[in-house]
């Protein structure tokens, strides 16, 4: 089976399941309408979901993505406590600045996930990505150093090894 057909079939099954969960089926008409809508969705936007030919180590990747999810939630809780501390402090202890970090990830989806998790973790916000040189510009609320390699270790190092396991 060709790769686009496989992607379309996957999108059809997924959107039909979401439809069933959202409507909590009571009648046959809802099933018919769901089949119609899922077909429409899979024709229009079905070919973008799966793009790679083969997929190896599927179990290992799922396990490391679950580990990544828990690590991410923990970092996010810490980030919120940090922001609450800064906001409630009477004299606003901030020292902001924009620094540059490097990344070793190459796929677009991996870089997207990395920048999103940098945005939601303590004190950092992604400003821009330079895809040719693999550089990410990060706004940091509490700048500790201006050295590129050191900042790469402190900001991106928490997620980068796990994301390498998940995506490559």
């Amino acid at each position, binding site marked *: 089976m060709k790769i686009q057909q496989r992607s379309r079939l996957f999108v059809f099954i997924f959107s039909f399941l979401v439809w069933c969960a*959202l409507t909590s089926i009571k009648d046959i008409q809802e099933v018919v309408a769901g089949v119609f809508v899922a077909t429409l969705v899979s024709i229009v936007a079905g070919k973008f979901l799966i793009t790679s030919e083969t997929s190896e180590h599927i179990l290992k990747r799922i396990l490391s993505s679950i580990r990544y999810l828990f690590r991410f939630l923990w970092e996010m809780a810490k980030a919120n406590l940090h922001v609450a501390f*800064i*906001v409630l402090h009477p004299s606003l202890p901030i*020292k902001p600045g924009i620094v540059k970090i490097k990344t070793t990830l190459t796929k677009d989806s991996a870089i997207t996930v990395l920048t999103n998790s940098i945005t939601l973790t303590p004190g950092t*916000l992604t400003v*821009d990505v330079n895809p040719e040189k693999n550089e990410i*510009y990060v706004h940091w609320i509490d700048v500790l150093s201006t050295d590129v390699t050191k900042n790469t270790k402190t900001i991106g190092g928490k997620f980068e090894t796990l994301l390498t396991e998940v995506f490559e």
Partner: protein
Amino acid sequence: MTREIIGMVFILLGIMFDFFGVLGLVRLPDVYNRLQAATKCVTFGSAGILFGVFIIQGFNSFGFKVILGIVFIFLTSPVSAHAISRAAHQSKIPLAKESVVDQYQEDNELKD
């Protein structure tokens, strides 16, 4: 009854973090800092509220809608924060007076 109490605790936490985020939006000095505080805290707070509602409701259609809302918020909110901060920097809105370093500006000047 236990389920309702756990859900209420999550809703309370969510409302608290929403309030902190909005306080940050009002107090902090420039666009980038405001964006940091507001995006993190409000995303986490709204996701907490939705998760509490999911725990109270269980697996019916309301619960699935709420789960869909959580996934949607977590995917879209960092993306819009990134777009707004990049646009603010491109349209030359300056950083606050307390800022230490701006390596993005330096690299842009090197390129031109």
